[in-house]
């Protein structure tokens, strides 16, 4: 048997906790401002001063986070994966002895840079919090409620902000771009298309008496769809077509529970052409 210490890295004792943390973060992934923000939150769970944080542990926590996302089939934005790759690299560098004469940046320097990044972001998040606690004009402190204005001898005071100016320019540029702008074309299955397809296929189903056999919704969707968006739109459009046919009393639809397959069957007398 191999001594466990050799593979200590592969069996981190924090695994259970990390999975828990990772899931909590993944639940609220929209609430985070990117991977650095997530890292900062993970670092906070170590409950030590950021200058004493274990970068190795932090890298593990983050990699667990990304692994969990993959296990749960969640799409993480590319930036999260880039960070994972960087941390995996950092982790390996921290664990392996430094190659003599290597030109790559030292692992210690990388870890220090990461730590600085986190401390700086934390400082700015705290600063944002402090800004919010300052008294605010119009909320705690008030300006003159009935201002009287003194026109300069030459002209009226023009109320045009810098934003107005930029926006005006942005509008012009946009107008010009729009004149030659084509709407992006998305390859989607339309409801009509799905309706046509479902009606045609229903007619070919084996029947018992007045009713056809129960058939899953998925079997009405074209096979071999590579385009994810098209696949989703096909599913949605087919379901929509199904519901419309139910409304018309031509089919029945059934689902035995949440996330279980949806079945359709034809019920009406087949129309004789």
């Amino acid at each position, binding site marked *: 048997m191999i001594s466990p210490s050799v593979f200590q890295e592969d069996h981190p004792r924090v695994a259970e906790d990390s999975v828990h943390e990772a899931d909590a973060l993944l639940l609220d992934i929209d609430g985070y401002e990117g991977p650095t923000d997530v890292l900062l939150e993970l670092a906070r769970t170590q409950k030590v001063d950021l200058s004493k944080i274990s970068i190795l542990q932090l890298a593990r926590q983050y990699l667990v986070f990304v692994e969990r996302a993959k296990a749960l089939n969640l799409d993480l934005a590319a930036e999260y994966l880039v960070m994972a790759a960087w941390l995996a690299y950092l982790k390996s560098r921290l664990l392996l002895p430094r190659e003599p004469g290597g030109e790559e940046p030292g692992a210690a320097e990388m870890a220090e840079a990461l730590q600085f990044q986190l401390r700086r972001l934390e400082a700015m998040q705290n600063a944002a919090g402090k800004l919010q606690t300052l008294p605010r004009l119009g909320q705690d402190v*008030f*300006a*003159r*409620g*009935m201002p*009287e*204005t*003194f*026109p300069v*001898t*030459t*002209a*009226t*005071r*023009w*109320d*045009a*902000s*810098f934003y*107005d*100016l*930029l*926006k*005006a*320019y*942005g*509008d*012009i*540029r*946009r*107008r*010009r771009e729009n*004149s030659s*702008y084509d*709407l*992006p074309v*998305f390859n989607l299955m339309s409801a009509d298309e799905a309706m046509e397809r479902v009606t045609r296929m229903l007619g070919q189903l084996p029947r018992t008496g007045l009713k056809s056999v129960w058939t899953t919704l998925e079997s009405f969707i074209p096979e071999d769809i590579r385009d994810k968006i098209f696949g989703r739109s096909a599913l949605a459009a087919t379901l929509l077509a199904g519901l419309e046919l139910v409304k018309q009393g031509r089919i029945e639809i059934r689902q035995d529970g949440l996330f279980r397959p949806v079945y359709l069957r034809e019920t009406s007398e087949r129309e004789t052409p």
Partner: protein
Amino acid sequence: MTPAPIRLLEALLFAAAEPLSVKDLHERLPEGTDIGAALMALQGYYEGRGVVLNEIDGKWAFRTAPDLGDALKLEREASKKPSRAALETLAIVAYHQPVTRAEIENIRGVATHRGTLDFLIEAGWVKPGRRRETPGKPLTWVTTTSFLDQFCLESIMDLPGLDDLKASGLLDRRPAIEVIPSSGDLFAPADRLDEEETEDM
């Protein structure tokens, strides 16, 4: 330090958007405040100052002292917003200067109303630059120092570039796919076109 109710009264009258009646003040000051006495005391503070506490029709308000009117050329006047056409023209001059009138029209895609440039000149934001060394020697237009003042810019070099505008969301308002179902953004800007046709000054 001035007694608390008088401080509060002073702040209230200062910040109020309209003259306040004794009843209004009653509701806002601590219970038991002798409002009459407080108003008298406050009026006393401002005796002979640049600001006076006036009673008009049973309501109270601070006003600048009437005898200062001449010295201050005090006038009540709301500030005005330049028209959209004027702002757009100004923006083009700012970004493309020196620029001729024909070029401005070309960039805006709309003929420029005579009054638009006149307005910008009168406001002191735009002035004539050198004549272009091309046939017809057209006059070019440039922005002035007072333009920089108005928009708190130190130099014309400090205008955000196209990439900055893009990144801050000012340039590109193309609907992203996620807004299609929820808002009508995609088909809405019909009203924007109407707006452009009328070049009001």
